[in-house]
C-alpha cells in the first residue's frame, strides 16, 4: 500500500527548480505505471518513494509507515526490508558472483535467509547454470534479469522499477514486464513502474502521467 500527498521536491543545484508530484493512492497488490517524458522528474519521484531523497514537502506512507518521520538510519533499514529497486541500467557488486549478489541483498534486508526462494527465483529467470559466474560473464539480457531478481529476492512490499525496459528489444521488453508482474504477485507487493516507453502502457490498466 502506497499513499502520497502533495509531494514536492526542490533541486538544490539546478536553479532551485521545484517539482510537484500528483498524489497516488495504491491499495495492496495494486500496480501503477507512471508515464512521462524525460526530464519531468520520474526518477526523482521513484527515489522519493524509496526514501533515497528527502521531499521538500508532502507526505509519503508505505504500509502505514510515515516515511517522512523516519531517521536516515531507520529509512535505510525500512528500505532494506520493504523496498525493491530496479534500475534502468543494472548495477551489481562486481566482485561477487550471481548467487552471492542475491545473498548479499537478502542479508542486508535483515530478513531470514530463504535458500529455496533464491533457488526458485534463479530458476524462473533462467540463471540456474550461471549462479556461480561473475557478473561480467553475463549477457546484457541475463544481467537485466538478475537485476529484477535482486529487486524482488527479499519479497519487498513495494517494487519500484525505473525505466526497466528502455534498453531492451521488444521480445525482452515483454519478458521483463511479465516477469515483474509475476514476481509482484508472488511477493504480494505493489509494483510501480516509471517509464517513457510506450510499449509498456498496454500491460497496465492503472497509469498516471507526470
Amino acid at each position, binding site marked *: 500500500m502506497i499513499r502520497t500527498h502533495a509531494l514536492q521536491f526542490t533541486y538544490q543545484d539546478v536553479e532551485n527548480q521545484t517539482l510537484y508530484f500528483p498524489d497516488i493512492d495504491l491499495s495492496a497488490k495494486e500496480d501503477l505505471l507512471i508515464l512521462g517524458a524525460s526530464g519531468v522528474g520520474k*526518477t*526523482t519521484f521513484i*527515489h522519493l518513494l*524509496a526514501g*533515497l*531523497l528527502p521531499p521538500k514537502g508532502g507526505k509519503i506512507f508505505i504500509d502505514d509507515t510515515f516515511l517522512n518521520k523516519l531517521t*536516515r*538510519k531507520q529509512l*535505510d*533499514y*525500512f*528500505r*532494506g*526490508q520493504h*523496498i525493491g*529497486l530496479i*534500475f*534502468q*541500467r543494472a*548495477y*551489481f*557488486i*562486481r*566482485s*561477487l558472483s550471481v548467487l*552471492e549478489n542475491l545473498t*548479499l*541483498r537478502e542479508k*542486508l*534486508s*535483515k530478513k531470514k535467509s530463504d535458500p529455496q526462494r533464491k533457488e526458485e527465483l534463479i530458476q524462473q529467470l533462467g540463471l540456474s547454470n550461471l549462479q556461480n559466474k561473475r557478473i561480467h560473464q553475463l549477457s546484457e539480457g541475463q544481467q537485466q534479469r538478475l537485476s529484477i531478481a535482486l529487486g524482488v529476492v527479499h519479497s519487498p512490499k513495494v517494487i519500484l522499477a525505473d*525505466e526497466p525496459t528502455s534498453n531492451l528489444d521488444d521480445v525482452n521488453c515483454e519478458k521483463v514486464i511479465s516477469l515483474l508482474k509475476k514476481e509482484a504477485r508472488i511477493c504480494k507487493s505493489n509494483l510501480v513502474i516509471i517509464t517513457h516507453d510506450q510499449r509498456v502502457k498496454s500491460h497496465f490498466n492503472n497509469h498516471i502521467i507526470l
Partner: protein
Amino acid sequence: MLYLAYKNLISKPLNTFLSILLLMLSISLATFVLQMKDQLNQHLEKNTKPFDMVIGAKGSPLQLILSSILHIDNPTGNISLNEALKIGKNPMVKEMIPVSYGDNYKGYRILGTPDKYLNQYGATLREGKLYKKPFEVVVGSYVAEKNNLQLGSSFTSTHGLAENGLETHTTKPFMVTGILNPTASILDHLIITNLKSIWEVHEHEHEHTPHEEYHEKEREITSLLVKFRNPIGALQMSRYINEKTTMQAALPKFEIERLMKFLGVGFQTINSIAIIILLVAGLSIFINLIKTVRERKQELALLRTYGANIFQLVKLVFLEAIFLSMLGFILGWFLGRISTWFFSIYSENAYGYHFVFGLPNNKELFILALVILTTFIAAILASTSLYKLNVSKILANV
C-alpha cells in the same frame, strides 16, 4: 560484510598486492633492525656480563674488549702475568682470570685460561672431563659440531687468529678431553685449554725462531679478566692502572655502550627508512581506499538501496583497510624474522653470534599499533566521502 571486503580486495589483486608489498617491506625492515639491535645488545651483554674489567696491553680499550671477551678482534698485545697478578691483589677484586691466546684451529680460537673461566658462563660438560695437563682441551659445542671433534680427537693449531694461517704448529697436537654443553654464549665457539699449553706451543717455536715476540723469560698473558666485589672498584682501579702502569684497563659495560652508540646511528638510519616506507605504505593504502570508494561509488550507492546504512559502508572500508594492513604486518613480520634467521646463520659462522627466533616483542607490538593507527587514519579519511555519497544522483546518472 567481511566476505565482501575480502572479495573486493581479491578482485583488484594488483592494487592489493602493491599495498601489502609496501607494508610488508617496511615492517620487515623495521622488525629486522629491531631484532638485530636487541639481539646484538643481548649477545654483547650476556658475554661481557661476567667481567667488570679487562686489563691488557695499551691500545684501544674497545679493541681490548672485543678481542679478550668477545673474541672478534686482534689483541692489543701481551702483558706480564706477574705484573697483572700484582694489581689483582686488591681486596676489591673478587675474581681474576688470566687469558692467553694467539692460535686457532680452523678459525676457532684456542684460549688458554684456568678452568674457572668456564664457570663464569655457567658452562657444563656434555661429555669427557676438564683439561688437566697441557695440550688437553675442552671444546665449545658449536666448534665440536662444526669440526666433528669427539673425545680423544686431536688436532694441531695454527698460529695467529685467522683461519688458513700459513704457520702451523706441527709438533704439538691438542687432544680433546671434554665437550661443553651449549651455553648460547661465546664459549660455544671457543677451544679452551690451560695457560701452559699456550706458553709451551710458543716456547717450542722459539727454539727455531729466536726473534719471536714471546722471547722474554717472564710469563706473559694476553689479558686479565677481573670481577669486582662492587662496581665502584672497577672505576677506581681502571683509573689507577691507566695512569700508573704500562697496561690499560677497559670496562666492558662502558665500551659496549660506546659501541652501541656508534652502531645506533646506523640502526637509526635504517629505522628512519623503515618509517618512511611505512608512511608510503600508509599512503598507498589510503590511495587504494580512496580509489576503491571512487571506483565503486555505484556499488556503494547500490548497497545503500539494499538497506545498508552509512555506518555499514564505513565498516566495509575499514575492514578492507584492516585486512590489508594486518596481512602486510604479519607477512612483514615473518619476512623480518626470516631475514634475521638468515643473518644469524651467516653471523654465527663469521662472529659466533647466535640469533634467536622470538615471538613479537613490545617494540614490534608498538609498530603494530602504529600500523593500525595509520590504517585507521587512512580509512577515516577515505570514508569521509561516504557521507557525501549522493545515492540518488549516482544511480540516476544514466
